[in-house]
């Protein structure tokens, strides 16, 4: 069967209905040239991602955070705002530091709640704990280690606190976590901890309240957990058994 390039493009972008998808997949299995055309569309997407994703890990200019926190300018105030914008720009021209959490705290205690829905959502700024991959955001470093090894509500002095462990509706194991500056939950998928929900910058600077208990998670994260959870949270014994199986379903 023949397909137009536009149809194969739509297929590669996940924009065709189930019937057409099955037809194309059947044709791909029979005709490698069709599969090749689809692969070409997909690799262009990957190339573009590679070319532009770098900015996601760059420090956020203070002037953009200032702009988001500013009171909307009325039209009458445009002139003074241009000056303000210029001043902000000059500040931003000074040596930039990595987004610091105390700065976040100053903006507003609970300003940033991001729920990750698929691979295109919020990109976390703490790159030593998170990695952006083709499949979405995954935990790395200390966070990944804690999710794999730590039992819930155990290590009081650890940098990463693990709270609840539960299964999602697909049967995968998920665990809530909190660090001094971020909280959320991640699920075990294909040997990685995929971050499903994340709230950054909301933790109390002094108290580190997210470390205390599962219930100290931000409400938006708790809602996301409730929505994902199938059945009850695991108890200690079930948690240990799941860990012994390396969190495989």
């Amino acid at each position, binding site marked *: 069967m023949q397909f137009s*390039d*536009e149809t194969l*493009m*739509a297929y590669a*972008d996940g*924009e065709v209905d189930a019937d057409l998808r099955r037809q194309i997949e059947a044709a791909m299995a029979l005709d490698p040239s069709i599969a090749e055309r689809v692969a*070409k*569309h997909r690799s*262009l*997407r990957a*190339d*573009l*991602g*590679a*070319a*532009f*994703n770098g*900015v*996601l890990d*760059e420090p*956020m*200019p203070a*002037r*953009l*955070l200032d*702009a*988001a*926190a*500013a*009171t*909307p*300018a009325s039209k009458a105030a445009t002139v003074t*705002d241009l000056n303000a*914008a210029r001043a*902000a720009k000059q500040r931003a021209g000074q040596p930039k530091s990595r987004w610091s959490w105390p700065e976040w705290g100053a*903006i507003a205690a609970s*300003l*940033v*709640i*991001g729920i990750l829905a*698929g*691979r*295109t959502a*919020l*990109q976390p*700024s703490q790159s030593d704990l998170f990695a952006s991959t083709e499949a979405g955001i995954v935990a790395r470093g200390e966070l990944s280690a804690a999710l794999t090894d730590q039992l819930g509500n155990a290590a009081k002095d650890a940098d990463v606190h693990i709270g609840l462990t539960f299964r999602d509706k697909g049967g995968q194991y998920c665990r809530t976590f909190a660090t001094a500056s971020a909280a959320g939950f991640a699920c075990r998928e294909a040997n990685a901890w995929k971050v499903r929900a994340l709230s950054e910058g909301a933790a109390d600077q002094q108290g580190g309240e997210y470390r205390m208990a599962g219930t100290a998670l931000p*409400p*938006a994260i708790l809602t996301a957990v409730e929505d994902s959870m199938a059945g009850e949270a695991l108890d200690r014994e079930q948690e240990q058994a799941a860990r012994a199986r390396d969190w495989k379903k």
Partner: protein
Amino acid sequence: MSETPANTTTSLQQVRQHIVALLPRLRRFGRAITRNAADADDLVQISIERALLRHEQWRPESPFHSWMFGIMRNAWIDEARARTRRGQMLAPEEAGLDVGDNASEAQQRLLSVQKAMASLPDEQRLAVALVLIEGLSYKEAAEALEVPIGTLTSRLARGREALQKQLE
């Protein structure tokens, strides 16, 4: 956080939260369409100001990113027009993209993708940036660009073809 904006303050607060969560992606979209890092952040800043000013126009039932990218697209078109009036050419930015002779093959690839992207006509570049870089659905991208889906897909197809040709 309440789901339904009870009043103006709530919806302004919601718009702010969405903006901050979306900031890294706004910057990425800016880079993809302006060809230049400084222009990109200027564009993001202007768009944030516009979004806050018009926060009441956002309808929570439609995706926030479509609305926000739409504001950026309009701001970019305004800027492009103003520059044409001032007689400034919108030449693809070459400076700053040069990483020298030691660039790895992967870096070279990355640069040629950026250059190819910069060479596209605005309307194709916007479609490619929204769908292939920002991951919007055709419907969302068409909404952001205020065009019918058929127009979006034909721009996307032409943009893709041009990119693939250049990158072969």
